[in-house]
Protein backbone atom coordinates (compact mmCIF):
# COMPACT_ATOMS: atom_id res chain seq x y z
CA UNK A 1 0.00 0.00 0.00
CA UNK A 2 2.82 2.33 0.90
CA UNK A 3 4.61 1.30 -2.27
CA UNK A 4 1.69 1.97 -4.56
CA UNK A 5 0.53 5.32 -3.19
CA UNK A 6 3.16 8.03 -2.78
CA UNK A 7 0.69 10.08 -0.71
CA UNK A 8 0.16 7.30 1.82
CA UNK A 9 1.84 7.39 5.20
CA UNK A 10 2.49 4.73 7.78
CA UNK A 11 0.79 5.26 11.11
CA UNK A 12 2.24 3.67 14.23
CA UNK A 13 1.74 5.48 17.55
CA UNK A 14 0.79 8.68 15.78
CA UNK A 15 2.35 10.95 18.40
CA UNK A 16 4.47 12.74 15.80
CA UNK A 17 2.21 12.29 12.78
CA UNK A 18 -1.18 13.21 14.22
CA UNK A 19 -0.19 16.73 15.29
CA UNK A 20 0.93 17.31 11.70
CA UNK A 21 -2.43 16.13 10.44
CA UNK A 22 -4.32 18.24 12.97
CA UNK A 23 -2.37 21.32 11.92
CA UNK A 24 -2.94 20.35 8.27
CA UNK A 25 0.78 20.49 7.64
CA UNK A 26 0.81 16.92 6.37
CA UNK A 27 -2.02 15.84 4.09
CA UNK A 28 -1.68 12.13 3.31
CA UNK A 29 -4.27 10.47 1.12
CA UNK A 30 -4.21 7.29 3.15
CA UNK A 31 -2.93 6.17 6.50
CA UNK A 32 -1.63 2.64 6.77
CA UNK A 33 -2.20 1.60 10.35
CA UNK A 34 0.60 -0.59 11.65
CA UNK A 35 -0.95 -0.77 15.08
CA UNK A 36 -2.61 -4.09 14.56
CA UNK A 37 0.54 -5.98 13.56
CA UNK A 38 1.43 -7.93 16.69
CA UNK A 39 4.70 -9.28 15.29
CA UNK A 40 6.12 -5.76 15.27
CA UNK A 41 6.01 -5.55 19.04
CA UNK A 42 8.19 -7.11 21.69
CA UNK A 43 11.56 -7.23 23.39
CA UNK A 44 13.77 -10.25 22.95
CA UNK A 45 17.27 -11.05 24.20
CA UNK A 46 19.34 -13.69 22.42
CA UNK A 47 23.06 -14.32 22.15
CA UNK A 48 23.99 -10.95 23.52
CA UNK A 49 21.68 -9.14 21.13
CA UNK A 50 18.64 -7.25 22.37
CA UNK A 51 15.98 -7.14 19.66
CA UNK A 52 13.12 -4.71 19.94
CA UNK A 53 10.15 -4.75 17.61
CA UNK A 54 9.59 -1.41 15.90
CA UNK A 55 6.00 -1.30 17.10
CA UNK A 56 6.96 -1.58 20.78
CA UNK A 57 5.75 1.45 22.69
CA UNK A 58 8.21 3.61 24.59
CA UNK A 59 6.22 2.89 27.75
CA UNK A 60 6.72 -0.83 27.29
CA UNK A 61 10.44 -0.21 26.92
CA UNK A 62 10.45 2.08 29.94
CA UNK A 63 8.86 -0.67 32.01
CA UNK A 64 11.00 -3.50 30.62
CA UNK A 65 13.43 -5.08 33.07
CA UNK A 66 15.26 -6.58 30.10
CA UNK A 67 15.92 -3.14 28.63
CA UNK A 68 16.91 -1.73 31.99
CA UNK A 69 19.42 -4.50 32.53
CA UNK A 70 20.82 -4.93 29.04
CA UNK A 71 20.71 -1.41 27.61
CA UNK A 72 20.48 1.02 30.54
CA UNK A 73 21.30 4.01 28.34
CA UNK A 74 18.16 3.35 26.31
CA UNK A 75 16.04 3.10 29.47
CA UNK A 76 17.45 6.35 30.78
CA UNK A 77 16.93 8.25 27.54
CA UNK A 78 13.36 7.04 27.15
CA UNK A 79 12.40 8.49 30.52
CA UNK A 80 13.36 11.93 29.16
CA UNK A 81 11.09 11.65 26.15
CA UNK A 82 7.99 13.85 26.46
CA UNK A 83 5.60 12.47 29.07
CA UNK A 84 4.12 9.10 29.94
CA UNK A 85 0.85 9.58 28.02
CA UNK A 86 2.89 10.18 24.88
CA UNK A 87 5.14 7.21 25.63
CA UNK A 88 2.08 5.03 26.04
CA UNK A 89 1.39 5.40 22.31
CA UNK A 90 4.70 6.39 20.71
CA UNK A 91 6.68 3.49 19.25
CA UNK A 92 10.43 3.14 18.94
CA UNK A 93 10.10 2.54 15.21
CA UNK A 94 7.88 5.56 14.70
CA UNK A 95 10.18 7.83 16.67
CA UNK A 96 13.25 6.69 14.78
CA UNK A 97 11.59 6.96 11.39
CA UNK A 98 10.48 10.50 12.28
CA UNK A 99 14.15 11.45 12.90
CA UNK A 100 13.63 14.70 14.76
CA UNK A 101 17.04 16.37 15.12
CA UNK A 102 16.22 17.26 18.73
CA UNK A 103 14.97 13.82 19.76
CA UNK A 104 16.69 11.47 22.20
CA UNK A 105 16.44 8.13 20.42
CA UNK A 106 18.54 8.90 17.34
CA UNK A 107 21.47 9.93 19.56
CA UNK A 108 21.11 6.86 21.69
CA UNK A 109 20.92 4.30 18.91
CA UNK A 110 23.99 5.79 17.24
CA UNK A 111 25.84 5.70 20.57
CA UNK A 112 24.84 2.06 21.04
CA UNK A 113 25.87 1.01 17.52
CA UNK A 114 22.40 -0.35 16.94
CA UNK A 115 21.17 -1.93 13.74
CA UNK A 116 17.83 -1.04 12.22
CA UNK A 117 15.82 -3.69 10.42
CA UNK A 118 13.60 -2.57 7.58
CA UNK A 119 11.17 -4.42 5.38
CA UNK A 120 9.94 -3.50 1.92
CA UNK A 121 8.72 -5.07 -1.29
CA UNK A 122 12.28 -6.18 -1.99
CA UNK A 123 12.64 -7.90 1.36
CA UNK A 124 14.57 -7.26 4.57
CA UNK A 125 17.36 -4.73 4.88
CA UNK A 126 19.69 -4.05 7.80
CA UNK A 127 20.97 -0.52 8.27
CA UNK A 128 23.62 0.62 10.71
CA UNK A 129 22.39 3.39 13.00
CA UNK A 130 25.40 5.46 11.97
CA UNK A 131 24.11 5.49 8.39
CA UNK A 132 20.38 5.73 9.09
CA UNK A 133 19.92 9.45 9.74
CA UNK A 134 20.53 11.42 6.57
CA UNK A 135 19.15 14.83 7.53
CA UNK A 136 16.57 16.61 9.61
CA UNK A 137 13.43 14.44 9.62
CA UNK A 138 15.07 12.33 6.92
CA UNK A 139 16.29 8.74 7.05
CA UNK A 140 17.61 6.11 4.69
CA UNK A 141 14.24 4.37 4.82
CA UNK A 142 12.56 4.04 1.42
CA UNK A 143 9.01 5.32 0.89
CA UNK A 144 7.87 1.74 0.48
CA UNK A 145 9.66 0.39 3.55
CA UNK A 146 8.80 0.22 7.21
CA UNK A 147 11.03 -0.37 10.18
CA UNK A 148 10.36 -3.71 11.79
CA UNK A 149 12.99 -3.77 14.50
CA UNK A 150 16.04 -2.37 16.22
CA UNK A 151 18.88 -4.56 17.47
CA UNK A 152 21.30 -3.58 20.23
CA UNK A 153 24.58 -5.45 20.65
CA UNK A 154 25.62 -6.25 24.20
CA UNK A 155 28.05 -3.80 25.69
CA UNK A 156 29.16 -3.27 29.24
CA UNK A 157 30.07 0.39 29.56
CA UNK A 158 29.54 3.38 31.81
CA UNK A 159 27.03 5.71 30.21
CA UNK A 160 26.19 9.32 30.81
CA UNK A 161 23.25 10.92 29.10
CA UNK A 162 22.69 14.64 29.62
CA UNK A 163 20.37 17.07 27.94
CA UNK A 164 19.27 20.66 28.32
CA UNK A 165 15.68 21.54 27.55
CA UNK A 166 13.51 24.58 28.28
CA UNK A 167 11.16 22.44 30.37
CA UNK A 168 11.27 18.81 31.45
CA UNK A 169 10.03 16.60 28.65
CA UNK A 170 10.67 19.18 25.94
CA UNK A 171 12.86 18.53 22.95
CA UNK A 172 16.48 19.06 23.85
CA UNK A 173 18.38 22.21 22.95
CA UNK A 174 21.52 20.14 23.23
CA UNK A 175 22.17 16.58 24.27
CA UNK A 176 25.13 14.27 24.75
CA UNK A 177 25.44 10.53 25.14
CA UNK A 178 28.83 9.36 26.35
CA UNK A 179 29.99 5.83 27.00
CA UNK A 180 33.35 4.60 28.17
CA UNK A 181 34.87 1.44 29.48
CA UNK A 182 37.31 1.86 32.31
CA UNK A 183 40.40 -0.23 32.91
CA UNK A 184 41.47 1.17 36.23
CA UNK A 185 41.50 4.91 35.59
CA UNK A 186 42.04 4.60 31.88
CA UNK A 187 39.28 5.11 29.33
CA UNK A 188 38.84 2.67 26.48
CA UNK A 189 36.32 2.35 23.69
CA UNK A 190 34.94 5.85 24.20
CA UNK A 191 31.72 6.73 22.44
CA UNK A 192 30.74 10.38 22.09
CA UNK A 193 27.48 11.37 20.41
CA UNK A 194 25.92 14.83 20.35
CA UNK A 195 22.38 15.76 19.37
CA UNK A 196 20.64 19.05 18.73
CA UNK A 197 23.81 20.43 17.17
CA UNK A 198 23.21 19.43 13.56
CA UNK A 199 20.50 17.92 11.38
CA UNK A 200 20.94 14.59 13.13
CA UNK A 201 23.13 12.81 15.68
CA UNK A 202 26.83 13.60 15.47
CA UNK A 203 29.45 11.11 16.53
CA UNK A 204 32.70 12.82 17.41
CA UNK A 205 35.67 10.75 16.39
CA UNK A 206 37.94 13.66 17.31
CA UNK A 207 36.75 13.57 20.90
CA UNK A 208 36.93 9.79 20.99
CA UNK A 209 40.54 9.90 19.81
CA UNK A 210 41.48 12.21 22.66
CA UNK A 211 39.72 10.00 25.17
CA UNK A 212 41.05 6.65 23.98
CA UNK A 213 43.56 5.36 26.53
CA UNK A 214 43.38 8.59 28.54
CA UNK A 215 42.72 9.27 32.17
CA UNK A 216 39.80 11.64 32.20
CA UNK A 217 40.50 14.77 34.23
CA UNK A 218 39.31 18.37 33.86
CA UNK A 219 41.86 19.11 31.17
CA UNK A 220 41.12 16.03 29.09
CA UNK A 221 37.39 16.57 29.42
CA UNK A 222 37.72 20.17 28.29
CA UNK A 223 39.96 19.18 25.40
CA UNK A 224 37.56 16.50 24.23
CA UNK A 225 34.59 18.87 24.54
CA UNK A 226 36.38 21.47 22.49
CA UNK A 227 37.37 18.96 19.82
CA UNK A 228 33.80 17.71 19.57
CA UNK A 229 32.21 21.12 19.20
CA UNK A 230 34.81 23.39 17.64
CA UNK A 231 33.67 22.90 14.06
CA UNK A 232 29.96 22.55 14.70
CA UNK A 233 27.49 24.93 13.14
CA UNK A 234 24.27 24.00 14.89
CA UNK A 235 21.00 25.25 13.46
CA UNK A 236 19.53 28.12 15.46
CA UNK A 237 15.82 28.62 16.06
CA UNK A 238 13.50 30.52 18.34
CA UNK A 239 14.40 28.33 21.30
CA UNK A 240 18.15 28.60 21.09
CA UNK A 241 20.75 30.17 18.86
CA UNK A 242 23.49 28.27 17.10
CA UNK A 243 26.06 29.69 19.48
CA UNK A 244 24.07 28.61 22.49
CA UNK A 245 23.76 25.03 21.31
CA UNK A 246 27.43 24.83 20.59
CA UNK A 247 28.48 26.18 23.98
CA UNK A 248 26.01 24.08 25.90
CA UNK A 249 26.89 20.91 24.01
CA UNK A 250 30.50 21.49 25.02
CA UNK A 251 29.54 22.09 28.65
CA UNK A 252 27.34 18.99 28.74
CA UNK A 253 30.06 16.89 27.17
CA UNK A 254 32.59 18.04 29.72
CA UNK A 255 30.19 17.21 32.54
CA UNK A 256 29.29 13.84 31.06
CA UNK A 257 32.93 12.89 30.68
CA UNK A 258 33.73 13.81 34.25
CA UNK A 259 30.73 11.79 35.35
CA UNK A 260 31.64 8.54 33.61
CA UNK A 261 35.33 8.92 33.11
CA UNK A 262 35.90 8.55 36.79
CA UNK A 263 33.16 6.21 37.82
CA UNK A 264 34.39 3.17 39.68
CA UNK A 265 33.51 -0.12 37.99
Amino acid at each position, binding site marked *: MLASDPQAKALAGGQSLLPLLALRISQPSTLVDLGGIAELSGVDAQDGLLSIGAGTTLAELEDSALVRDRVPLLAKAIREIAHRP*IRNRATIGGSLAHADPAAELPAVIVALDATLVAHGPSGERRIDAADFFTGAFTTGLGDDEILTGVEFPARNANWSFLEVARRSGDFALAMVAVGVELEGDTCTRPTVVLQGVASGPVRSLAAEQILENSVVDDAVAAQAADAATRDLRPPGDIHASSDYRKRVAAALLRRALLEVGRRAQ
Partner: protein
Amino acid sequence: MTGVATETHTVEVTVNGRHFERALEPRISLADFLRDDRQLTGTKLGCEHGVCGACTVLVDGAAVRSCLMLAVQARGREIITIEGLGSGSGLTPLQEAFHRHHALQCGYCTAGMLLTTTAFLRENPSPTEDEIRAALSANLCRCTGYQAIIDAVADFASDGARSV
Protein backbone atom coordinates in the same frame (compact mmCIF):
# COMPACT_ATOMS: atom_id res chain seq x y z
CA MET B 1 -7.24 16.57 9.48
CA THR B 2 -7.72 17.02 5.80
CA GLY B 3 -9.30 15.53 2.75
CA VAL B 4 -12.86 15.05 1.73
CA ALA B 5 -13.85 11.95 3.59
CA THR B 6 -15.51 9.32 1.48
CA GLU B 7 -15.20 6.14 3.47
CA THR B 8 -15.96 5.04 6.97
CA HIS B 9 -14.64 2.21 9.06
CA THR B 10 -16.69 0.19 11.47
CA VAL B 11 -15.27 0.47 14.93
CA GLU B 12 -16.25 -1.50 18.00
CA VAL B 13 -15.21 0.20 21.16
CA THR B 14 -16.13 0.14 24.85
CA VAL B 15 -16.56 3.49 26.55
CA ASN B 16 -17.05 3.67 30.30
CA GLY B 17 -18.19 0.08 30.29
CA ARG B 18 -20.68 0.42 27.45
CA HIS B 19 -20.09 -1.22 24.12
CA PHE B 20 -20.57 0.67 20.86
CA GLU B 21 -20.26 -0.12 17.19
CA ARG B 22 -19.99 2.93 14.96
CA ALA B 23 -19.09 3.73 11.39
CA LEU B 24 -16.51 6.48 11.54
CA GLU B 25 -14.41 8.53 9.15
CA PRO B 26 -10.74 7.71 9.62
CA ARG B 27 -9.81 11.30 10.34
CA ILE B 28 -12.05 11.70 13.39
CA SER B 29 -9.94 11.83 16.52
CA LEU B 30 -10.81 9.78 19.57
CA ALA B 31 -11.44 13.08 21.37
CA ASP B 32 -13.95 14.23 18.77
CA PHE B 33 -15.61 10.80 18.78
CA LEU B 34 -16.07 10.91 22.55
CA ARG B 35 -17.26 14.51 22.63
CA ASP B 36 -19.41 14.69 19.53
CA ASP B 37 -20.57 11.16 18.82
CA ARG B 38 -20.89 9.96 22.43
CA GLN B 39 -21.70 13.40 23.86
CA LEU B 40 -19.19 12.83 26.62
CA THR B 41 -18.08 16.42 26.80
CA GLY B 42 -16.14 16.05 30.05
CA THR B 43 -13.01 15.37 27.99
CA LYS B 44 -11.73 18.77 26.87
CA LEU B 45 -9.77 20.13 23.94
CA GLY B 46 -7.09 22.65 24.85
CA CYS B 47 -4.66 22.49 21.95
CA GLU B 48 -5.48 19.61 19.62
CA HIS B 49 -1.81 18.95 19.01
CA GLY B 50 -0.97 16.78 21.95
CA VAL B 51 0.72 19.09 24.43
CA CYS B 52 -1.78 20.34 27.00
CA GLY B 53 -3.21 16.99 28.15
CA ALA B 54 -6.74 18.31 28.72
CA CYS B 55 -8.01 15.54 26.44
CA THR B 56 -6.43 12.68 28.44
CA VAL B 57 -8.47 9.47 28.72
CA LEU B 58 -7.59 5.90 29.64
CA VAL B 59 -7.18 3.43 26.78
CA ASP B 60 -6.92 -0.11 28.14
CA GLY B 61 -5.85 1.49 31.40
CA ALA B 62 -3.07 3.65 29.98
CA ALA B 63 -3.25 7.45 29.94
CA VAL B 64 -3.51 8.63 26.35
CA ARG B 65 -4.05 12.02 24.73
CA SER B 66 -7.28 11.43 22.89
CA CYS B 67 -6.51 14.20 20.39
CA LEU B 68 -3.48 12.17 19.29
CA MET B 69 -5.39 9.02 18.58
CA LEU B 70 -7.78 8.39 15.77
CA ALA B 71 -11.12 6.94 16.76
CA VAL B 72 -10.51 4.04 14.39
CA GLN B 73 -7.34 3.20 16.32
CA ALA B 74 -9.52 2.57 19.38
CA ARG B 75 -11.12 -0.50 17.80
CA GLY B 76 -11.42 -3.25 20.36
CA ARG B 77 -10.21 -1.08 23.21
CA GLU B 78 -11.68 -0.02 26.53
CA ILE B 79 -11.89 3.70 27.01
CA ILE B 80 -12.48 5.42 30.34
CA THR B 81 -13.32 9.11 30.42
CA ILE B 82 -13.95 11.48 33.32
CA GLU B 83 -17.58 10.49 33.26
CA GLY B 84 -16.56 6.90 33.89
CA LEU B 85 -14.38 7.57 36.91
CA GLY B 86 -17.01 7.56 39.59
CA SER B 87 -20.21 5.76 40.34
CA GLY B 88 -22.25 8.68 39.10
CA SER B 89 -23.66 9.62 42.47
CA GLY B 90 -20.75 10.98 44.45
CA LEU B 91 -17.19 12.16 44.21
CA THR B 92 -14.45 9.55 44.30
CA PRO B 93 -11.84 9.82 47.07
CA LEU B 94 -9.38 11.25 44.54
CA GLN B 95 -11.90 13.87 43.47
CA GLU B 96 -12.57 14.64 47.13
CA ALA B 97 -8.85 15.20 47.65
CA PHE B 98 -8.83 17.66 44.73
CA HIS B 99 -11.75 19.48 46.33
CA ARG B 100 -10.10 19.62 49.76
CA HIS B 101 -6.90 21.07 48.35
CA HIS B 102 -8.45 23.60 45.95
CA ALA B 103 -6.81 21.70 43.12
CA LEU B 104 -9.09 23.21 40.52
CA GLN B 105 -10.12 26.75 39.64
CA CYS B 106 -11.68 27.06 36.19
CA GLY B 107 -11.95 23.28 35.93
CA TYR B 108 -10.95 23.02 32.28
CA CYS B 109 -7.76 20.99 32.82
CA THR B 110 -9.27 18.98 35.67
CA ALA B 111 -10.56 15.96 33.77
CA GLY B 112 -7.16 15.50 32.14
CA MET B 113 -5.43 15.88 35.49
CA LEU B 114 -7.68 13.26 37.07
CA LEU B 115 -7.18 10.77 34.25
CA THR B 116 -3.40 11.21 34.15
CA THR B 117 -3.32 10.85 37.94
CA THR B 118 -5.51 7.76 37.88
CA ALA B 119 -3.22 5.94 35.46
CA PHE B 120 -0.13 7.16 37.30
CA LEU B 121 -1.28 6.00 40.73
CA ARG B 122 -2.25 2.60 39.40
CA GLU B 123 1.29 2.20 38.13
CA ASN B 124 2.89 3.87 41.16
CA PRO B 125 0.63 3.73 44.24
CA SER B 126 3.17 5.22 46.66
CA PRO B 127 4.91 7.99 44.78
CA THR B 128 7.23 10.65 46.13
CA GLU B 129 6.29 14.28 45.64
CA ASP B 130 8.93 14.57 42.92
CA GLU B 131 7.43 11.62 41.09
CA ILE B 132 3.96 13.17 41.32
CA ARG B 133 5.32 16.44 40.03
CA ALA B 134 7.03 14.71 37.10
CA ALA B 135 3.87 12.76 36.23
CA LEU B 136 1.66 15.85 36.38
CA SER B 137 4.05 17.74 34.12
CA ALA B 138 2.20 15.96 31.35
CA ASN B 139 -0.80 18.27 31.88
CA LEU B 140 -0.95 22.05 31.59
CA CYS B 141 -2.87 24.21 34.03
CA ARG B 142 -2.95 27.99 33.89
CA CYS B 143 -4.98 28.71 37.01
CA THR B 144 -3.72 26.81 40.04
CA GLY B 145 0.06 26.92 39.81
CA TYR B 146 0.02 23.11 40.23
CA GLN B 147 1.05 22.84 43.90
CA ALA B 148 -2.52 22.31 45.07
CA ILE B 149 -2.93 19.48 42.55
CA ILE B 150 0.32 17.86 43.67
CA ASP B 151 -0.78 18.19 47.29
CA ALA B 152 -4.14 16.60 46.49
CA VAL B 153 -2.52 13.62 44.81
CA ALA B 154 0.03 13.24 47.60
CA ASP B 155 -2.74 13.43 50.18
CA PHE B 156 -4.76 10.78 48.38
CA ALA B 157 -1.76 8.50 47.92
CA SER B 158 -0.66 8.85 51.54
CA ASP B 159 -3.54 6.66 52.59
CA GLY B 160 -2.10 3.39 51.35
CA ALA B 161 -5.39 1.63 51.84
CA ARG B 162 -7.06 3.58 49.07
CA SER B 163 -6.82 2.51 45.48
CA VAL B 164 -7.74 4.83 42.68
